[in-house]
Each structure stands twice: as structure tokens, then as C-alpha cells.
């Protein structure tokens, strides 16, 4: 488990946000990158954890 490189995350933000029609204002970019780094670290914590056949389908009554 290693923290993602903020420069890599910044590139991801610059490339992906326009594809999602989500323009990132220049004054937000640094904060968005910092927060996305945090979320990716959180995701890393879960990736390593062995899960069984946990079911997560929401209840849907047709």
C-alpha cells in the first residue's frame, strides 16, 4: 500500500474531469487533488482486505 503520487492524481483530474463535463476551477484544483489523494488512499485500504461473497445488491421490489 503506497500513497498515490499527487502529480499522477493531478494528471488524472486534468484528463478525467473534462470527460465528465465537470470543469474544475483553477482555485479548486489543488484542494481537489489533495482530497482525491485521500479517497484513493482510503480505496487502497479496502483493496487489500480479503472479502468473501458479501452481497451488496440494494433491495428492489419490482
Amino acid at each position: 500500500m503506497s500513497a498515490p503520487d499527487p502529480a499522477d492524481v493531478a494528471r488524472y483530474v486534468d484528463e478525467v474531469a473534462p470527460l465528465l463535463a465537470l470543469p474544475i476551477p483553477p482555485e479548486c484544483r489543488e484542494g481537489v487533488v489533495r482530497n482525491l489523494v485521500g479517497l484513493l488512499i482510503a480505496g487502497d485500504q479496502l483493496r487489500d482486505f480479503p472479502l468473501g461473497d458479501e452481497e451488496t445488491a440494494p433491495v428492489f421490489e419490482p
Partner: protein
Amino acid sequence: MRSSDGLGVAAEVRTGRASARETVVAALARIRARDPGLNCFSAVLEEDALRDAAAVDAAVAAGRDPGLLAGAPFAVKNLFDVRGLVTLAGSRINAGNAAASRDATVVARLRGAGAVLLGALNMDEYAFGFTTENSHFGPTRNPHDPARVAGGSSGGSAAAVAGGLVPFTLGSDTNGSIRVPASLCGIYGLKPTYGRLSRSGAALFGISFDHVGPLAASVRDLAAAYDVMQGPDATDPVCASRAVEPCLPVLDDGTEGLRIAVADGHFATGGEPEVFAAVESVAKALGAVRRVTIEENDRARAAATIITASEGASLHVEDLRTRPLDFDRMTRDRFLAGALLPAAFYVRAQRFRSWYRAQVREIFREVDVLLAPTTPFPASRIGQDTIAVGGVEVPARPMLGRYTQPLSFIGLPVLSVPVAGPGPLPVGVQLVVAPWKETTLFRVAAALERDGVAAARIVP
């Protein structure tokens, strides 16, 4: 009759010894005098409140039942719909919306029981925060030290009770937003089981974890408000179709026969000594010597953070696209980051949630009540970014959810009690039980209050 005693007020009004109008006039005067220094209220409904109070008095005069909470003043976090009021949810963006055409279900039920709504209360924008440092509307101040935060996101709801403005309020709790401010302001706060109370007419945030619930100056007011709000609601798909299980009748039942344990590990580390001392004082009073360990709480917090960021961003994505700079700078970058997270992260977090729930279910086969701190430290200063815990500087705001987040992650009912102590600032202890066992929570909380171990700190 104390102004912080809702059922006491109602008893006087119901028997004609006091009028609802006089009660409401006095409460409005307290708000005028004290709220400028606290910044709890975003709207005060003077005209509506006086009209509703007059209706209660008319019912009493006509011999009709005015309701359990007749004439008791209350107020609600400004994410609840109130007929005739714009539902701000702490945002400037929503200020442009039309006024709500009807009350949220829980607001309507309280009004139906004779309680008189005095207004709407400040919060973190869209409930995304633990401190109620709202950049648009200003911070809500802690009544015990106005230089400190009230906690959040239901900060206005907690400070309005602790400041002696109203006896009880409503808040919402996604990762700790009722329990954290209840702890920092020294009052009682209930986050019921996920799905117990209707969220219909409440602005949502993290739909997997959103709960609504009461905050109060006494256990019996907390129980009365909770009991009145219970019951199925077809307009909220998450609200369970369970019968009402009243808690007021169990307040004198005591704790005999309950298996009570202290949560150790994660819940016994990462906080200041005074919060663990508070847990120990509760444990001692209840004769709880057993320790139990819930595993993988850091991962639970990580998963809850991912789910909250993803669901919150999804709810607001159109505004994030078109007017990101109208968001509070305290929430904006976190919402935008959540909108950029791949779906696989979200699904993995939901799968982990099922694993964590299964683990905790096993614990509740052998234990009825778990004790844990509510917050890792008392109220931090307004504007404070980091705080020393055990000599290590940590980010102050997210750390406030250290002990609350893993529990709301799996929808457990939790009641935060204010622990009587010598410190200048209050802290709370969480009573945690298995899903749908709220009656047990109230038995324990009432016993602690009766024995003086728990006591709300209300500004006189």
C-alpha cells in the same frame, strides 16, 4: 417550570397552569437575547409560532387533547422541509429554491403532538462537516465557550439546546452529525436505527447512512420527541414498516440483566485522556467490566468516507458542474473529488460494509450494550485546522468522527450521553446497541441521568 424541560412545559400547558403563548413568547425573547452571540438560528418563525401556540391554547380551553408535547418549543436543522420556508441545507445555492410546500414527516408529527416550531438552525453546508463552520452563514458558537465550535453538522441544533434556547431540536446524522455536536455541547443526542425514522422531506447527503433524530436537554424529552416521530412512512423508501416501540414507558426500567461492555482497541485509543475517563465513569456506574473488540475500524472509516463522498457528490453533481464556486469552500473541493472517484471503489466499500456488519452482529449475540467515546476530544477552536492528540498533530475536523463513523456505517442505534465531569468543556459517551433496540438505549441513558453520571450542561 424550566425552559429546557419540554415535557414539563407541556404538563403545565395541558393542565392550563401555563399558556403555550406565554411559553413561546418567552422562548422567542431568549432567542432574541442569546442567538446573536451563538448563531444557531437561520430563520425564526415568530408569527407561525404564535399562531400555533394560540391553537394549542384553544384546544386546551375547548377540552380537546392538545398532544403530548403541547406548547413545547422546538427548532430543526435547516435541512428539514418546513412549510413556507426555503430549505437551505446550509447552502447559498438552495437559497434560490422555492419555499417548501409541506413539512417533513417528522416535523409534521411533532407539530401534530402540539410542539411549537420556532425556527430553522444552522449547519455545515449539505451536512458535509463536523464543526458547523459555515462560510456563508458564519460559524455556530459553542455555548460553553463561544471561541469554540459547536460540533456538526447539526451544530445549530446542539447549541440551541445547550444555550437554553429550546428544550429539544432535530438534527441529522450520516457519519456522526447528531452525536458529535451533542458531545461537544454537553447534551443528549439520538441516532436511531437506520430506517427507523422517516427522512421524507429532509435534504439527503449520504443516502446509505442518512438518519434523522432528536437532540435534547433531558432523556425524557429525547424519548418523547423520538416516540412522537416513530412509525412507517410510505414516502420514504428507507423507512421501515415497523410498529412504534415507545421509549417513554421504559425510562424507569433500570439496567438489571443487561450485558454491558466497553469497546476497546480503536475506541480506546486516539483520543484525549478525559474522553476515556468519561467512558470509565459510565462503565463503573453500570458495573461494566468486560471489554470487547470490534476489528477493522480504520477500514470502516475509509469505506464510509468513500461512500459518503460518492453519494454526496452524486446528489449535487449538476451544481458542481455549473456553479462550483457557489459551494462553501469548506465542502467544495471534497464534493468535486468525490465526483471523480471510480464506481468500483464505491462498490468495494459497500461490500466491506456487509463484512463489518456481520462481525458486529456476532458481538451483539453476547453483549447488549457497548460503551465508546463520542468524540476524541472536547470542542476545538473555531478555525482550528489541527489538534494534538496524544502528542501527535492530526487534522481536527475529520478526526471528530473517529468513534462515530464506524457505527453509523452499519446503521446501529446510538445515544450520546453528556457525562458529568469537572472539565470546563463537556464530552459525551456513546451507548451502542443492536439494530431496533432503542428501548435498551433509553433504559441505560435514563439510569445514568438518574444517578447523576450523565447530566446535560445547559446555560442557565
